């Protein structure tokens, strides 16, 4: 049970950056197999995250940037334990070495890395994966440490902390002796909008997922209570281990002893706004979110249909049009912001996935830059700033290759005569034959389904949350100081797909 070996590899050069075994040594040829499989999986667009090797080892792997983490185990282990460990390992490394983990960085700090691995995992079972707690046991290679070394003349930095681990005991994510000169706690409420739209802009499905990220620099053992407004909108949620779950279940207050540093406090999903909800009684003191308001008033115009009244909670509208001929095609997309939002929509980019028989594409945009990536057959269109008066428009001219073989034509003709006879024979039977079947027959021999180009979109709006969930108050107890607080709201794209 548990993880036997961990390989950290560079997936560009396919070389080993670090390796650690908790059990007997696992041969590093595992890595080659993983890479092989990984490449295959990319080709087949399948997700090869677990791999059985020679029937005795199982390799789990995750790629992050240029680094691939590979964990092996040789017996029954909960797969998610390994997958989650790899995910969290990356998070820990990020908190130690900065946001981009590269081979060079890991090699520079290999001592810290090995110590971390020692502390995070013992006998194959993860022990502690909270960066806040690990900082006590393994000092991060930060500026203070480097300065210290420079003064003392060592090149190598404080390598090992001999701190008493009992300092960590009450809460594995927080040491008991943290001190900051200025106490601060900042919250980011980030909401992601998922939406699937049909070409007319009608909403097929949508959902809003949010998370609250905390950047906590507080001394001592503070106890924070966070109350949310409009928390009745939250349908599903998950919390950081520090949160008292029962407290939230009973009075919707998020109460926790924060981990040190940055962490994700909670994830939530907004209850979908269904038709019945409209008639539901709502207490008056709940202020309606301006976004929602604008949707209920202004939305639905172009939508129509039964679901017309609900439109996507998107700050954008995207109207693609496409036509594909046998040898060429054309896609045009109009994209604009909805006027109801006070905040500017930033970092808008659209990806257009073209059908596989496209040979080349020539995109041109009235605003922003558009490029065509041949390998993935996508057109990428970024609009940095929306013009005030005009609506940006993208036109892509495509050259298409034909996939059909033309050698069928001869046999087609002979068939047709045959078929007509049979059809006559069948037609005599009267009512039993379905009329549509003969209609079908008259259609072309090979049907061609209308090809699609799905458009996915990215955007971000700073300063406003789409759902209306807000942080009402942040109270810090158990400590005497008054910390600096701040809450920021962001709205970003989730999975936005516009079908054509």
């Amino acid at each position, binding site marked *: *049970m548990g993880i036997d070996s961990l390989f950290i590899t560079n997936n560009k050069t396919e070389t080993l950056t670090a390796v650690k075994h908790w059990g007997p040594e696992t041969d590093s040829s595992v890595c080659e197999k993983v890479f092989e499989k990984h490449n295959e999986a990319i080709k087949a667009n*399948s997700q090869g*995250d677990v791999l059985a090797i020679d029937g005795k080892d199982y390799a789990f792997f995750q790629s992050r940037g240029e680094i691939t983490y590979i964990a092996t185990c040789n017996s029954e282990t*909960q797969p998610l334990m390994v997958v989650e460990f790899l995910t969290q390992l990356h998070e820990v490394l990020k908190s130690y070495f900065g946001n981009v983990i590269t081979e060079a960085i890991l090699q520079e700090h290999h001592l810290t890395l090995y110590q971390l691995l020692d502390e995070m995992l013992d006998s*194959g079972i993860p022990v502690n994966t909270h960066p806040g707690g690990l900082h006590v046991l393994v000092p991060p290679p930060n500026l203070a440490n480097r300065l210290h070394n420079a003064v003392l003349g060592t090149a190598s930095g404080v390598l090992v902390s*001999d701190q008493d681990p*009992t300092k960590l005991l009450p809460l594995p994510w927080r040491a008991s002796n943290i001190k900051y000169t200025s106490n601060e706690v900042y919250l980011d409420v980030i909401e992601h909008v998922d939406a699937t739209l049909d070409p007319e802009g009608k909403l097929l499905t949508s959902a809003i997922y949010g998370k609250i990220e905390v950047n906590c620099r507080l001394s001592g053992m503070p106890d924070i209570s966070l109350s949310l407004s409009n928390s009745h909108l939250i349908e599903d949620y998950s919390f950081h281990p520090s949160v008292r779950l029962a407290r939230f279940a009973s009075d919707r207050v998020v109460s926790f002893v924060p981990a040190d540093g940055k962490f994700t406090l909670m994830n939530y999903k907004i209850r979908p706004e269904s038709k019945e909800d409209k008639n539901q009684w709502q207490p008056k003191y709940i202020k309606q979110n301006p976004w929602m308001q604008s949707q209920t008033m202004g939305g639905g115009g172009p939508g129509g249909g039964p679901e017309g009244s609900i439109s996507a909670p998107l700050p954008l509208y995207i109207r693609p049009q496409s036509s594909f001929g046998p040898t060429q095609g054309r896609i045009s997309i109009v994209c604009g912001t909805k006027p109801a939002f006070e905040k500017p929509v930033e970092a808008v980019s659209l990806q257009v996935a073209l059908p596989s*028989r496209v040979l080349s594409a020539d995109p041109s945009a009235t605003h922003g830059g558009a490029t065509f990536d041949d390998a993935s057959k996508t057109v990428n269109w970024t609009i940095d700033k929306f013009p005030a008066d005009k609506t940006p428009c993208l036109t892509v001219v495509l050259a298409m290759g034909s996939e059909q073989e033309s050698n069928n034509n001869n046999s087609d003709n002979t068939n047709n005569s045959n078929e007509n006879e049979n059809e006559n024979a069948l037609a005599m039977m009267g009512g039993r034959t379905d009329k549509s079947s003969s209609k079908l027959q008259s259609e072309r021999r090979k049907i061609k389904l209308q090809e699609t180009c799905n458009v996915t979109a990215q955007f971000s709006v700073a300063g406003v949350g789409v759902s209306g969930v807000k942080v009402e108050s942040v109270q810090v107890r158990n400590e005497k100081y008054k910390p600096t607080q701040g809450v920021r709201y962001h709205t970003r794209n989730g999975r936005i797909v516009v079908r054509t």
Partner: protein
Amino acid sequence: MAIAAGYGNSKFVDDAQIAEETRALNEKLRDSNTRTKLEGLKQLIAMMSTGRDVSHFFPSVVVNIVTESFEVKALVYMFLVRTAEQKPDEALLSINSFQKDLAHQNARVRAAALRVMSSIRVKVIVPVVVLAIRKCAVDVSPHVRKAAAHAIPKIFRLDPSRADDFVEVIETMLRDSTPFVLSSAIAAFQEVCPHRIDLLHRHYRKLARILVDIDEWGQMLTCELLLRYARTQFLPPDGFNRELNVGKDNESNEEMLDIAGFNDVDGNGGGASGYDRHDTGGTKGILAQAANFYDDDEEDSDDDSSSSSDSDDSNSRKKKTTTKASKKRGPVNQGPEFLDDDHRLLLRCTRPLLQSQNAGVVLAVASLHFYLAPIADVPRATRALVFAARTKPECQHVLLKNAVAMAAVQPRCFRSHFEAFFVHPGDHMDVRALKLEMLTYIVTAENAPSLLRELQAYLRSSSQEFVALTIRAVGRCAAIMPQIASICIRSLLELSLHPSETVAGEAVVVIRALVQKAPKEHASVVATLVRRLDHLLAPAARSAVVWLAGGELFLDQQQKASSVEAGTSSSAVTVVADGGKEYKKLGQMDASWNRNFFDLALAVVTKAMARFPDEHESTRQQILHATCKMYVRYPIETEPLLRHCLNMASKDPSVDIRDRARIYGAIFAKTDSLDDEKKDAYPRLKKLLSEKLLFCDKPITRLPSPAPPTCPHQLGSLSQFVEHVANGYAGLPKHPREAPPSSVRDRTYDTGGIGGGTTTSKSKKSNRGFYSSSDEDSSSDEDSSDDDSSDDDSDDSDDSDDSSDSDDSDDSDSDESSSYDSSSSSESTGSDDDDEKVEKEEKKEEEAVETKKEVAEKKEPETATTIEEPPAAEKEDETKKSEEMD
């Protein structure tokens, strides 16, 4: 070291340089200055991390272990762990200093020393380490105790004969009340003695209560452990099926879904529509529907048990279930104490963990609830699962796989999350397949239109593989809901003209399966499809079309009707109910239709015959069958075709086809065909034989599905995910039939014996205790709802347990006999008649069995009968059928 080759920069450095480097490094290591030493060690570990062989530095490093500097010590430890295996003798030298470190005043040093010592994989030192573990297991510092717990599995892997020692230590450690230590103790328990459930009795309640305070990794392990414990100690929560039965699962599920669908059509399926209110999500709503659940699901579970002998009269079965259900609904609230208190405690204590950020915990708890919670509570767990799948993209694949396995058994639990399983263009193919599979399980009459709209969008995808998967999903939807079948078939028919060979082939195969299910309704489709034979390239599609051209679905409607009646097809049942008059009319129309169809089929098969040698084996076989079938009906027209066909087939490269040709050749010997009119015994026998052989009831087809769950392994396990039994996998134990006494859990123990455990935990309690205590407080209100639900369940599951148990034991025999080829058992072996061979056209997996049978037959003379004992019901059925035929 095997690793050295190929990695690192070492291969570019020549030997002289290496020698120089080595010497310099050795010097550094032996230097008296700590700082130089550190530098040397650092360099060494850098070499180690790139996979270079550093074991020859061992002597120079080991001497440093006595140092006072913690930094040097830590680095030496790091080095030792990696290389001790290659230098066991030198490693022994270091043991003394380890012993010293184990008594160090700093807890961190003690823990590190034990960790390193237990990581040195040298068998000689095992006794020393075991002693150290014993000592550290009662250390004052929980950190050291944790290290001791972790050391146990390490040494156990090295020397399994020490298990008895360890069980003793683990028993001590389980008494610990520090969650931090317990999680590791449980890991050790799982590895060393997972079957010693008896050790857990007295700790069970503590473990359940402390669960919220254990770290997330420990929570996963503890949930798994408690699940196993509960499975051995508690009765099943209710009568619902929780486990996937591979082999018969697909059919039983399909049947189950069929029934749900038919209920909707008939308008008396109050239960099914009741379910859709479910999305409101509140516990109350779910509980209110619990009663409804039972109506349907009683049928389900019944179907499961009886599906293997599925051809007994469906009417009588219906009656049986209804009486059963009504019996059950009679006494309400008879056993208020149905769920054991401890059972409920476990459910209550694990429920908050569904809100964990760690997907592993969510999955562990969700599967625990799936197995142990009353069915009305399961949707809460599945909701968390669906949410985790969205927020944790890395874990999506594993979570979905488990969700599909759950939905295969209890699809209702996922119905309210319908839209969550729509495919996103960014999803990987595996995930897409799983999502499609899930959608076909949970689709209901109400959301079928939106599903079809969604599937239509997928069909336009440029990935052919995905389109093929979608086609399967469309087919399954059509099978589940007959009311949309014609729309589905029509769109599939269009797809059979798709430019891609695989897509078109898939479409045809699915249509064939659908047509077979309800032949009457899709007659025109068959004609259309048969005409398209020339456009189809995929062998599977071609053989499917030739099979259809064989025309067995139409040629003998009248005889068929009786046998179809016994089957599950709804249309057949209604036809019979309509009575004789209409039936006759239909028969007449069929006759003319058949004639026309035959003309068409003859033309097509003749054409196919021209290309006979070029066809794929399966297609050749189908051509052979189709010709024979047509010959039986229209001997005069097809005589030359048959001769030609037999001639070709007898020279086929495939042994199987040659054998078949020989058998058919013997049956349709030339002389007999001419005196067919004569009523003497022999040709009549022939005719019967051929009819039995060729026109036997076909097994209900299994529609191909996008990603069927194939293994019944425990949810959340690696084996479940990789679909084979991984090393060290032990399946879930079965619930006992009678609850073991709960008093075993009442025994307590005195904590006085353990040194540090009490002191530290007391100081902790003030700080941390409110996490768990507050949880308990607020969950008391939930508790009451638990009572309600269990009240509802209690009456039901008590006797359903009995019945299902007895069913199981009864069925097991017949299951086994019919599992030989379970689906064909219904039509197999007319013992009164003269044949016993079953023909199965499209079950490739059963092909092997079939040939075996054929061989068996060939040994016997043609008229001989090897009588296999069919189950009694089938025998009856069979005789009835043959009487009618006569």
